[in-house]
């Protein structure tokens, strides 16, 4: 269990840095969605299924969708 946790923790740090260093917003939204999944897995491993469910629906679906919609509005004319 502890190995799984360690791997997911490292993946979280890597994911966060990847989202921040990604300077193109469209791909950033995708990376953020993936980061949301990593967080969801981490929370599941931390025995927090409620939070994991929320993080996946919010972090991987809703948040990237909102960012893409905003991006279309800002750039797409």
């Amino acid at each position, binding site marked *: 269990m502890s190995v799984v946790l360690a791997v997911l923790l490292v993946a979280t740090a890597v994911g966060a840095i990847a989202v921040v260093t990604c300077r193109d917003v469209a791909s950033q939204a995708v990376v953020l969605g993936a980061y949301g999944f990593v967080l969801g897995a981490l929370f599941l491993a931390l025995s927090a299924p*409620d939070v994991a*469910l*929320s993080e996946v629906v919010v972090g991987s679906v809703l948040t990237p*969708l909102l960012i893409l919609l905003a991006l279309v*509005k800002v750039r797409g004319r």
Partner: protein
Amino acid sequence: MTSRQRRLVAVPVGAGLAVVLALAFHGLPAFGTAHHPYGDASVRAALALRHTANAVGSVTFDQRGLDTLFEEFILLAAVLGVRLLLRPAAGEHQGTDPDREPRSPAAVRATVLVLLGVTAVLSVSVVLHGHLSPGGGFQGGVLAASGLHLLYVGGGPRTLARFRPSAALELLEAAGAGGYVVIGLVGLVGSGSFLANDLPLGRTGSLLSAGTVPLLNIVVGFEVGAGLVLLLASYFAQERLAEGPR
């Protein structure tokens, strides 16, 4: 500052912040510690006193239900705010939708229909079992709102708009947020405490248990679901504006 100057200032500031965090985090108990006094008391309160199988639900809606009340109004304020901020400004006019949109292939429509049914059942179940298993009003509401947007995939903006009556959704959202306050006030009138959970508690693990917790899950589910649909509608309307004639 120019962005170069800012980077120069940011380096010592970031280092300082790292030092502050390191010093403070050094005092944290070991990861995985067995010492959780509030947590243990909460679990006991959830099970023994309130017959709530999901202790997180008990903390969210019962023991710390006041926090969740404020949280619901953060959501309400945000939805009102987004509607306000993304409303067409003077001089902009709403783009016109195409009268007919191309029908998507039958296979796509069938898949979407099935998926819609699955999400609908799933989100209702997630809301209704919030006091028993992981999930609850918030997660179910988000699921339902996202699921509705499958209509966009299967049909298009017009199909989506037809199943998105904004006046009804506004009423539903407000009823959800107001319902939370009403349940709180019923507790105040009934037993002298705002948000008191004084409904019959039922048997732990059954659908009708935990007193007000499932009710609060339901009102939150309505508020979150309706609120998110309205919120996304504002963004979609903005998108249409951009495409429409100016």
